[in-house]
């Protein structure tokens, strides 16, 4: 299935969860926050949160800024 991650199309196996996505992005263990279709997915729910075709996912972190 295809989802939009940070504005770009990404192919994921069906049944993929937020944790699957984070692993695929090689971001496991990093401090980040995830939003699916503009709703926050709390860290504790990442393993069980199934993604669906066409979901819009944002994966964000902290960077330098004023």
């Amino acid at each position: 299935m295809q989802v939009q991650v940070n504005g770009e199309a990404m192919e994921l196996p069906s049944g993929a969860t937020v944790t699957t996505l984070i692993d695929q992005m090689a971001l496991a263990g990093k401090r980040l926050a995830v939003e699916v279709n503009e709703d926050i997915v709390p860290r504790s729910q990442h393993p069980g949160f199934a993604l669906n075709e066409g979901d819009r996912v944002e994966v964000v972190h902290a960077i330098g800024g004023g």
Partner: protein
Amino acid sequence: MSETSEIQLPVDKPLEIAGRVYQSRLLVGTGKYRDMMETGHAIEASGAEIVTVAVRRTNLGQNPDEPNLLDVISPETYTILPNTAGCYTAKDAVRTCRLARELLDGHDLVKLEVLGEEKTLYPNMTETLAAAEELIKDGFKIMVYCSDDPLLAKRLEEMGCVAIMPLGAPIGSGLGIQNRYNIRLIVENANVPVLVDAGVGTASDATIAMELGCDGVLMNTAIAQAKDPIRMANAMRLGIEAGRESYLAGRMPKKLYASASSPIDGTFF
């Protein structure tokens, strides 16, 4: 033989924001530095305890070995103040704050800034007020970047913002405090901390903000874009301290003409 005794200077009360106490009145950003090491060193030299960060997408092709900002600026050492920089609508600002809270394990102190246009980065106050209302309802503690309008500043305080942060001049301009009279009016009317956010270019600008009675100053570019950012961070720390002490001491009245410091009596000519 006389003993030298050190003068005991009166102690200032610390800055308190949302129930937490800070010794430093200088708040710094983490943008525009050459690298992460320079960021860390400059922040250490500034003595700041509150440090702003931005929230952005992780790059899809990011190098996984690249250090994370929050590894250098640890939330255990610093109070991390996520900002909503780059947001032009209340909706985007609210989303950004919710992501930041998730990112920082429920930490709910945020810097709200909703911008109006790219040229001046002036705050869009209509959207700022709307975002503040929604975020306060959602339990956030808001330090709000705003225009230097005393009435709007008061309104933001009455809504429940924990700190009011009027601009001294446009973000990144380094022009210094452009409307001292307004900043002073905002300070006089406020019952929450007032911090100048944006516009400081050099240490004397920070001093002026503090002499006007501000509770603190938030800056980024003035340190990061100095030729020697670490040295400028130290200059800003001293400038803030000097300005605060000067404000507490109460300056002499300004006079139009001279007034001799040495007595006239006892001259022998």
